[in-house]
């Protein structure tokens, strides 16, 4: 017997009520692609398929979905893709082939330019303290408490000026300033961010935050 009887009507009604209410919008699709391609680039080349074959699903998800839990609650404007550590390594390799850091931009009077990444073969570990400050800032942004976010970001800048998460810190700062309505400062910070991190995966979020 190769024919299926129709699903009972009450189950059909139940399933129909779950229908999607909004399709994936073009902007969201593009933003997701940015995040996905960054994650894909961060997969260890060649080892991914072999790893996948060896691991069961939950382990695999835990291995690949780095930071999924942490990033879950981000609202669409405070979007920050993950995983950021490995992506950062890419930037280091491509953007700064020489070990000597370039001098800071002389025209930035308000605040010293964010430190340039320094080339190294393996990224330094991210300390729990550093991560915690960034997480606190991100959580505050989600709660629309931009002042608290700026406070956490300032503490990060003091303690981890050249930290592994400096790129994300600078991106979050733009979003926090924008959330507070400090548009001029947000735009200045955004220009500085894009100059320092031209290929950043956070660039779309920074641009969105300062869009007119």
């Amino acid at each position, binding site marked *: *017997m*190769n*024919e*299926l009887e129709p*699903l*009972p009507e*009450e*189950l059909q*009604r*139940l*399933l129909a*009520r*779950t*229908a*999607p*209410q*909004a*399709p*994936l919008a073009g902007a*969201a*699709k593009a933003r*997701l*692609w940015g*995040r*996905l*391609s960054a*994650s*894909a680039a961060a*997969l260890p080349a060649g080892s*991914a*398929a072999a*790893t*996948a*074959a060896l691991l069961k*699903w*939950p382990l*695999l*998800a835990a291995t*690949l*979905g780095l930071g*999924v839990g942490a*990033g*879950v*609650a*981000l*609202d*669409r404007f405070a979007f920050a893709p993950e995983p950021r550590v490995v992506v950062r390594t890419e930037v280091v390799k491509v953007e700064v082939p020489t070990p000597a850091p370039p001098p800071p931009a002389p025209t930035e009077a308000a605040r010293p330019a964010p430190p340039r990444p320094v080339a190294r073969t393996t990224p330094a570990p991210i300390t729990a303290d550093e991560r915690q400050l960034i997480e606190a800032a991100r959580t505050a942004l989600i709660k629309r408490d931009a002042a608290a976010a700026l406070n956490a970001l300032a503490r990060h800048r003091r303690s981890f000026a050249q930290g592994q998460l400096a790129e994300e810190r600078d991106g979050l700062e733009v979003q926090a300033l924008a959330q507070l309505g400090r548009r001029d400062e947000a735009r200045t910070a955004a220009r500085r961010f894009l100059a320092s991190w031209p290929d950043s995966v956070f660039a779309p979020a920074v641009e969105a935050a300062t869009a007119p």
Partner: protein
Amino acid sequence: MSLDLRAVYEAEAEAVHAFLSRFGLANAEVEDAVHDTFLTALSRQKTYDPARPVRPWLLGIAFRIAVARVRTARPTTAELPEQSDLRQDPHAALETQRARELVSRALAELSEEQGTVFALYDLHGVSAADIAASMGAPLATTYSRLRLARQAFAAAVKRLHPESP
């Protein structure tokens, strides 16, 4: 044979997103799940046979990811519809959310195989022939799995929500 992630994403992102929207996850979680689906597909590309349709394979991955999230989800937030839903009729949005949670919790009680065929066929409308091709199983076997999956799903719904369906 390597998977062209960009091409597959371009062609299938909407379908994967629509499929994952039905599990009662928050909007941001749906996007996370879409991301995880394609990333997992990339890492598992050796399990994909290019001669077979890509969508059932992708949705099978999406289903596992969605159910894993449903199983580990915090207690229901059905009283607080998503912000985007508030722009629509709040009553309808709440109904949708409750239906999604019931369906996804019932699906999470099914075996992986039964849950997958049910979600693909009855929830997303993938043809039985495509599901059979994707699973490398005869059509008759797929129909038989579907019948068993429907029975298990109906029983799970009854258990979780005795008053309705």
